[in-house]
């Protein structure tokens, strides 16, 4: 065995072992999305439908960001949950430091797909096949993808780190809104709780505001 690693290095190496497949798959998806979107958009007949096709592919980025965030968070805590956190708690490391190091290790894993999105977006942006009247937004798209992945990962990391009871509270809260909406609707009251709750979450400065907006690599 080589020289004794640092604590950060040890956590990073263990996290890499658990999430490398996911990180590489995410990088592949992140690289493919811009290229596939351009390919399908070039098959359209008009500039307007070109834009519409690029917009349609935008959903893929949002889904990829959410999925990567979720799965990386689950992977970060998976083995600790399985082992009931005995090993982690028995290490001579303050709990808050351990949690923070695990979080940061996950961020490092997520950097791969974000970089892949940027590289592929730049390739598309410099493609000669893009209609000259349109503009490419590779940096903007990459930043949005990065922020979305960060938010999704942070949210699911927090839920994953909590006890089952906490997750139950969250799900219970969501279920309560739905049940309340059903009751309100059956009383013929014109109150849309579900839509308002969704607006609260998806409109700035809501938790998932970054998932709203445009995810278009090439636009007017």
């Amino acid at each position, binding site marked *: *065995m080589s020289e*004794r*690693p640092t604590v950060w290095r040890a956590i990073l*190496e*263990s996290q890499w072992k658990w999430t490398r497949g996911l990180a590489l798959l995410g990088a592949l998806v992140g690289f493919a999305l811009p290229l596939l979107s351009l390919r399908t958009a070039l098959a359209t007949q008009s500039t307007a439908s070109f834009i519409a096709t690029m917009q349609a592919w935008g959903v893929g980025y949002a889904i990829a960001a959410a999925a990567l965030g979720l799965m990386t968070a689950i992977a970060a805590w998976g*083995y600790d949950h399985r082992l009931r956190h*005995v090993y982690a708690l*028995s290490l001579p490391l303050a709990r808050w430091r351990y949690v923070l190091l695990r979080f940061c290790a996950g961020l490092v894993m997520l950097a791969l797909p974000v970089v892949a999105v940027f590289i592929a977006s730049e390739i598309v942006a410099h493609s000669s096949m893009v209609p000259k009247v349109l503009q490419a937004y590779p940096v903007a798209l990459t930043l949005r993808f990065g922020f979305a992945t960060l938010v999704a990962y942070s949210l699911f990391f927090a839920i994953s780190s909590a006890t089952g009871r906490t997750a139950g509270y969250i799900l219970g809260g969501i279920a309560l809104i739905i049940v309340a909406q059903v009751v309100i609707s059956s009383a013929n009251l014109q109150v849309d709780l579900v839509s308002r709750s969704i607006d609260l979450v998806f409109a700035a400065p809501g938790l998932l505001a970054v998932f709203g907006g445009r995810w278009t690599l090439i636009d007017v």
Partner: protein
Amino acid sequence: MTLAIETQSLGYAPGRGFQISNLNMKVPVGSLYGFLGPNGAGKTTTMRLLLGLLPAARGSITVLGEAMPAAHVQVMSRTGYVPERPHIYPTLTVDEALRFHSAFHPRWDQPWAEELRTQFNLVPDRRVGALSKGETGKLMMLLALAQKPDLLMLDEPTDGLDPVVRRDVLEALLSYVSVHQATVVISSHLVHELERICDWIAVMDRGSLVAELPMRQFKDGIKRLSVADAPATLAATPFTILARRPDNGSGEQWLVRGWSSDMQSYFGAPGATLRKIGDLDLEDGFVELLRSFREAK
């Protein structure tokens, strides 16, 4: 007597009818402290409380001179822990597990870790999850020892291991202890094993400490007496009678605790006659002690 571990009025009540109440435990520095008790007695729970893995409801815990769980980081850097169930990440290889563990322990002894790994025949690139039960047990002991701890907390470390592996593990443990004067708290069902290696013994049952004393004192102090003509009601005895049973129609068998040889004079007075003094091994003594404790409750 300097203590490595001390608890005062320690209490823990997770519900489901089980609780640890008023636990006063004293583990001397440098002792090999055997922790005996039936299943569900609270041994594992007590160990987790001592290491700050569970929150105590009442009382105080001092480990290596530091209050727990406040000084968790300092204490765990000097403590090697082998839990009841394997706690190493199963996807890591043996080598990776050593590397990971070493990162957290500044006193990690890499050459000795390698020596132990070879001694235990652990293949470096074999996944932890693919190791046999014995190999996993050896790996956990290796990790605990290689970090050069002042305190070793071993929760049934040889449970389920074959005799050869058990011997290897205990030899490594004793070898370390003999050189480094570490304190060892070891819980086990294998009474004979504890009898061989421990110099202190504690017996726990249903969340309470039944007995805590040097091994020699425990073994010497528990005797089986053959007594004739014993009255139904006895005057105050200098020893503790754990049990009185008929002895095949010829008197009674008394199981006593706290016996010393000068107590034979008790039987000089009119009444009971002492016919024979018999020794009990640790297991018998443990069983009888528990039985009397439960009957008293």
